[in-house]
């Protein structure tokens, strides 16, 4: 009797599977695919409504933003390639001001590749090194690269920035690469006019960098960097990644070398030059449900420890503001330690709906920056609602922001 029931269940299961397979195949029979071709263009436009709630409890302020972002990457001839990337941000904040219109010339360069393994480039390149998620000590060309901040999300800060004018050569071999670049001083100081290419921001000193990577094992391909500029002795950088299991990637990004503290640099002093390290170490775990979680520890020996940070916060406002402005332009950490936690859940709750967020915690003053985003996407358009919240004491890293909370509704259309 029991075996008969089992046989019946098995038969029903097989019949159900066959029906399901038949339905799937019938669906496939009716599927029509359209030929899609690669494009040299990537163009998007973005509109945003922004509401900011100030930290002093005043009434909220509203603003609107319209952005146009274009990337053109084409072959000029068999061995020649040209890349131009530009972004225009227009903002209305109640009444027109000079910064209502900002153009960011992100990239404009040509590449010559005489053979498969050798490449030379000249022009403005948005060059980014680093395997970490929240803080990239080896992203040496991030300093002064931001002209218009439309979001505090790390991906946005990396994407919407000025490249650096440079000459670069790269040679590759099976499992390895060697690149060298020279970024000359072209202008100083920075030029804030709306359509300036602003080489004074990115090319205000001579800089050079050498990057070497070599695959040492199937799963191990370290990258070593040597960077130098006019103001600091050479810095050594390292990028390492390791797969811990099917779902987890571990990473370590390190930069170290002799330099003055950030406070001394901000005050144009060079009295405390010593060996200082910067590092980010973290893990990204992905669950089968498409939820990815990143936990990252960030360290900056050139930042201020608790005593010095507290002393600066309680001291003269001018020195404090000078330091904050200097470190913000460098996109560095003002204090010695931070923790970054991020999560992204693709197809959360339903298809095409993504939830993401992160929190930066300054371990020295316990202030926090929180960011959450809900995003729905169609074929050509995205609709996102973003929430940003700064918490902490008035002069802490994140509590000092004039906005307590910022809401942003963003519509993006991809052409």
């Amino acid at each position, binding site marked *: 009797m029991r075996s008969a029931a089992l046989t019946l269940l098995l038969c029903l299961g097989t019949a159900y599977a066959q029906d399901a397979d038949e339905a799937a195949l019938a669906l496939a029979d009716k599927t029509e695919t359209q030929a899609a071709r690669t494009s040299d263009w990537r163009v998007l436009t973005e509109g945003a409504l922004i509401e900011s709630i100030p930290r002093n409890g005043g009434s909220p302020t509203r603003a609107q933003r319209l952005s146009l972002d274009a990337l053109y990457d084409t072959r000029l001839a068999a061995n020649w390639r040209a890349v131009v990337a530009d972004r225009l941000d227009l903002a209305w904040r109640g009444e027109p001001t000079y910064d209502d219109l900002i153009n960011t010339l992100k990239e404009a360069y040509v590449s010559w590749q005489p053979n498969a393994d050798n490449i030379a480039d000249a022009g403005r390149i948005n060059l980014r090194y680093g395997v970490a998620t929240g803080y990239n000590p080896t992203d040496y060309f991030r300093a002064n690269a931001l002209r218009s901040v439309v979001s505090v999300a790390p991906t946005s800060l990396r994407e919407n920035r000025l490249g650096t004018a440079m000459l670069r050569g790269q040679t590759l071999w099976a499992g390895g690469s060697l690149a060298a670049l020279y970024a000359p001083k072209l202008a100083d100081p920075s030029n804030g006019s709306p359509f300036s290419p602003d080489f004074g921001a990115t090319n205000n000193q001579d800089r050079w960098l050498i990057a070497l990577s070599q695959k040492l094992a199937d799963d191990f391909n370290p990258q070593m960097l040597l960077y130098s500029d006019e103001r600091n002795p050479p810095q050594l950088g390292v990028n390492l990644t390791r797969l811990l299991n099917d779902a987890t*990637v571990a990473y370590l990004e390190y930069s170290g070398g002799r330099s003055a503290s950030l406070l001394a640099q901000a005050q144009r002093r060079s009295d405390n030059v010593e060996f200082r390290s910067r590092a980010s170490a973290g893990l990204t775990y992905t669950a089968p449900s498409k939820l990815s979680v990143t936990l990252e520890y960030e360290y900056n020996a050139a930042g201020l420890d608790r005593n010095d940070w507290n002393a600066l916060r309680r001291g003269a406002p001018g020195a404090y503001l000078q330091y904050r402005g200097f470190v913000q332009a460098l996109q560095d950490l003002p204090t010695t330690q931070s923790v970054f936690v991020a999560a992204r859940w693709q197809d959360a709750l339903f298809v095409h709906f993504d939830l993401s967020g992160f929190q930066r915690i300054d371990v020295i003053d316990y202030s926090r920056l929180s960011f959450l985003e809900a995003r729905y996407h169609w074929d050509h358009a995205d609709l996102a609602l973003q929430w940003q919240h700064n918490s902490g004491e008035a002069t802490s890293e994140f509590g000092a922001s004039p906005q307590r909370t910022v809401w942003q509704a963003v519509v993006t259309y991809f052409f």
Partner: protein
Amino acid sequence: MFRTQSSVKAVLGGLATLAILNVAHAAPDAQAILAASDAVRNPGKPFALTTTLVEYRDGKQTDSNTLTVYSKANENSGQFRSLIRFVAPARETNKLLLKSGNDLWFYDPSSKASIRISPQQRLLGQAANGDVVTVNLAKDYRAELAAEEDTQDGDRKTRHSYKLVLAATSPDVTYHRIEMWIDTANNRPVKARFYSESGRHLKTAYYRRYQSELGTDRPTETVIIDGLNPNWVTVMRFSDYAWREVPESWLQRDYLPRFKPE
């Protein structure tokens, strides 16, 4: 002398007949069948193709992606490395995925970031990264012949097939165990069932729409049915097959920002 030669020929002929009869009754080599079926799916030299994925949930189309896949086998391991370029939709244009075993790198031309991702991190809707890259199963699995039986193929025709059970021998694989039906007449893959380490049925795949591509008849469509929810269906279409040499030096993270095919 002549008689002697005739006798030797007769004996040799008899031995040959015995050997043939013996071969005819020996169990087919499951690993060789699997390798032959790999050769039906995958060209023997570096190549490129266009893969279009159309996803359905409960009978309604929910997603569509177009990718260009460049594949080249590793001379030592025989396993393919794949460089995948996203063609459509517009928001994904020109993003890249490099897969060499469990070494996966994702590159976004907007942020210029090359990010290492884990095999579990999926970039497409229902399809695993391992579903869209080229894989020689015989290199990563030990095959055993479980049965010879008739099975229905993706075109609803009955095919006399070898049923192979594949057990993973490499940690780099997407699926722990696979049941695969291969046509006894021509080694064409007919269908496959994929299982997790815990034995959970993850997916069923039908290989169909055979047509001549790069010198032999190959499946130009795979229909993937989710094991947990059979109403989740992905149709993968393969087109624009072409021989395409991929220099060894391009199959690394540092080349991703440089990748610009004609």
